């Protein structure tokens, strides 16, 4: 059966009520950092941090999950997007968020955890590291890449 982002996110008791159409889960300031190559393929979005801020105030919460139906119409892919300041000093902080997300998803959102995924870090302001930064290599080894100021989902 085809894996759908919307159904998987709604199956999670904590995230279910926060699922929105298109990129509507992202507030305007962050939405400016995320685009879709074909907006008709967007399968919805969810603001993880907003959904969990009250119950887990001290956890390094990840920002958003965005579902996208690939051009081969197979399973949706979840693009986990963190909009965050881009300096070498923040690599550790994004790493901590990534570790938290993967662990939390495994325990609390099993259907989302099973889906194809990308983890991306989008600069919230100016990017202050070069493409060859060892911090970015370390992050890539953990499954997350930095994409600059704007991420285009495709």
């Amino acid at each position, binding site marked *: 059966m085809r894996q759908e982002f919307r159904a998987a996110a709604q199956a999670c008791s904590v995230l279910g009520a926060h699922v929105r159409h298109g990129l509507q889960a992202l507030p305007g300031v962050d939405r400016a950092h995320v685009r879709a190559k074909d907006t008709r393929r967007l399968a919805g979005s969810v603001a993880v941090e907003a959904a969990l801020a009250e119950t887990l105030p001290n956890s390094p919460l990840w920002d958003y999950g965005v579902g996208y139906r690939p051009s081969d119409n197979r399973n949706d892919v979840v693009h986990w997007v963190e909009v965050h300041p881009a300096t070498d000093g923040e690599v550790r902080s994004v790493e901590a968020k990534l570790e938290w997300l993967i662990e939390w998803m495994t325990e609390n959102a*099993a259907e989302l955890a099973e889906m194809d995924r990308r983890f991306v870090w989008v600069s919230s302001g100016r990017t202050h590291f070069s493409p060859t930064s060892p911090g970015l290599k370390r992050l890539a080894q953990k499954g997350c*890449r930095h994409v*600059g100021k704007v991420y285009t989902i495709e």
Partner: protein
Amino acid sequence: MQTMRLRNIGPIRRAELSFGDLTVLVGPQATGKSIALEFLKLLIDKGHVHQQLTRYGIDWSGKVDNFIDAYFGEGMHAIWSATSEIARDSGKVTMKQLARRGRATKTENVFMIPAQRVLSLRNGWPRPFADYAPGDPFAVRDFSEKLRILVEQEFGAKEQLFPQKGRLKEGIRRLLVEHVFGGFSLKIDKVASQKRLVLEHGGDPLPHMVWSAGQREFVPLLLGLYWLMPSARLSRRGDIQWVVLEELEMGLHPRAISAVLLMVLDLVWRGYKVCVSTHATQVLEAVWAIRQLQEAGAGPRSLLRMFNAPETQLMQGLADGVLNKAFRVYYFDRETGSTSDISSLDPDAESDLEARWGGLGEFSERANQAVADAVAAAGCSK
């Protein structure tokens, strides 16, 4: 000269360069970077070029094709066509003007260290101008001749060339000892009355043929830089105002490149206008970082830390001066034959060329993407 414009010359359709204190040219092979740099020298030093060619018996009879072959190298006349144009600040200059014999002069304002510098030593000694084939490029012949004059006239018969007190800043010498020479010294030696350059460690001379590839590349570069930095007290040599250095990274380990970059910054600090061409990401990384430090109002120590250089008073003075200089970067595009100003090297730039540093940052980014996506997929719990 502040600007240079080239049209329809070899692979160049349209190149517009506005020079900074350090100008870096990047782009794929055979896109016209060397042609642009050689034109820079010709535009400024026409009288000197004519004087040298004439002195060594080269007669182009005022003909444009012959002159282009004599200056750029055999067969290069094909780069020039009826639609070719060249201009500097003050306006267009015709190739006829450049080829026409004018006042020959010894005055030289541009010192060029060519990419073929490894050819300038034979059997461990700099080759004279006349030792080359008639069709060899002027840049390599002229550079080689200068090295010959330097080692024959400025150093004694048994002298140690490197390390040498008073030549180069101590902080830079230390980096070169560690990262280029590995404890060896560079000396003038004699075998059966024939002088030669040797590397020496523990008393045994090592001739040119057994040097590492990097050392063979670096020694001509070092001698060229000695020419430009006559002593720690004299900041510049003669009338030289410009330095052109092609592919500074050739044959060198990244740590050695870092030391050479620091020497390039020393040239900038001394007031030379420096133009380099490069295929090394490290060079753009340095320019990007310096621009970031400038914007952040950082002090000289930040710059020295980047190069792992000692924070002596002299080195701090160098770094402080460099942080007040202007840096420009141009990309030579193969597809369009034109140049793009990518000086900001801003990873967030709208232009892909600028954000990806004219392709030099591209591989690193793709490697990160391939690894990140593979790791993310492998971690799915399905």
